[in-house]
């Protein structure tokens, strides 16, 4: 049984009505969810201006077999994006899931840019496995049509033996030459074992390369201090 149809429609309608003053149509993001069980849905989400220069998006896709819940906080002018993605597989077999989120950014001209990102994965369940699919990284980011980089590169595996949780973390950075654009996107793709719940927490940010190099210089001592 599901509340999907009546409850979802009623609540979405209510939420849209109640939150109309806060939502901005020009801050519409797109969430795409695809699974190997035949599910495929593309959802447009109105962003909420937080008043601090960032926009928040939140959405849930729920049926009898799986759950995908996302909370995103992005800065369109930065641009940067903080991601919270949760996926649960309640079906009777491993599920291949692909989750794409694309947010609008202030149009940027091309040139050399610098990106930094990190991602933590937390897997919960009983004897459950999270793994990359073929040679595709679990996470990748892109700016316009240009791929920034990837995290949890293939082959990647995270396992829980018995009942409990298991965590992994990855980070990356680099410079990319791109031709300009107005979107920042993240792509998650993985195989999740039955009964498993995975939560991804991460952030990615982009700045023009000279500033990025300066920031890298600032960040390095911080990381060194943290390691020590």
């Amino acid at each position, binding site marked *: 049984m*599901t509340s999907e149809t009546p409850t979802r429609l009623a609540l979405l309608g209510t939420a849209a009505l109640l939150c109309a003053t806060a939502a901005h149509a020009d801050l519409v993001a797109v969430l795409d969810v695809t699974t190997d069980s035949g599910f495929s849905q593309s959802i447009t989400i109105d962003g*909420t201006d937080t008043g*601090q220069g960032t926009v928040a998006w939140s959405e*849930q896709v729920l049926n009898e077999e799986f759950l995908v819940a996302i*909370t995103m906080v992005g800065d369109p002018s930065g641009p940067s994006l903080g991601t*919270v993605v949760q996926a*649960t597989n309640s079906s009777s077999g491993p599920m291949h899931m692909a989750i794409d989120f694309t947010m609008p950014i202030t149009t940027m001209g091309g040139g050399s840019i610098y990106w*930094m990102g*990190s991602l933590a994965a937390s897997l919960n369940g009983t004897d459950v496995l999270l793994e990359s699919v073929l040679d595709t990284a679990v996470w990748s980011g892109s700016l316009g049509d240009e791929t920034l980089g990837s995290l949890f590169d293939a082959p990647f595996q995270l396992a829980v033996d018995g009942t409990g949780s298991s965590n992994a973390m990855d980070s990356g950075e680099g410079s990319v030459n791109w031709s300009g654009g107005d979107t920042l996107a993240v792509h998650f793709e993985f195989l999740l074992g039955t009964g498993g719940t995975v939560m991804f927490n991460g952030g990615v940010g982009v700045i023009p390369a000279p500033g990025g190099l300066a920031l890298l210089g600032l960040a390095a001592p911080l*990381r060194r201090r943290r390691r020590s």
Partner: protein
Amino acid sequence: MLTACGAALVAVNAAAPALGGSPFDVSMHWEASGDPSTPINVDLADAGIWSEQDDGSVVYSGNLFSDTWQLSWTTRIDTQTEVLLDTLIAVTNTSSTEQWFTGITMLDALDSTADSQLLTLASTLTVMNLQFSGEAELGSTSTAPLIAARVDGTTEGSLFEPIYVLTSVGPFSVATESASMVATVDGYQQSLANGSEFRLTAGDTATLHTITTLSSIPTPGSLAMLAIAGLTSRLGRRRGSWQTRRLK
């Protein structure tokens, strides 16, 4: 200040008839120090979406936001073999100052028949710095643990004792930590709750994933049976893998 959105949502929930069919009575209490219009109490079946899963559990999910905070939740409940309350909340402090938050997810009207049960509490905390500079901090209050499990309103288990601080340093960095504990709970149980009380720095996002279970304490006889079953299963697995190797 509570936004029109948050205030109106609470009002609608109070006025609307209960959307029938939800198998569980599960609610959430939410409070933010920077929002005088909180605390609010929401019935999760009414405030978001819910679905029975193929594995027999029921999942509730949704989100609320105001001028100063954004909250999304996913709560999974399963009472088939034990009582499972699995709660994940993601919170963003969208104000310009540090805030204190309290979130309690409560499963009511339990039909427990055991006099003594095993309480398991496990939690994973994550905090993200969504800036190119500075750091993000998720911390406990000075007096209360960050995560607590309550049975019939009494705190029976806790994690991340005061004063606990989790910090992520550097651009777009993430920090995470997990902990778990087990305790014995006596008496007839009617409600089970996951609670969190924490502070979060401005502009940052934290997620708190808490899993609480109540299960029967195995009798000595059944413990022996379990041990025998475990041994048999291990022997069977060994034999299976040996046969596989031989076939290769």
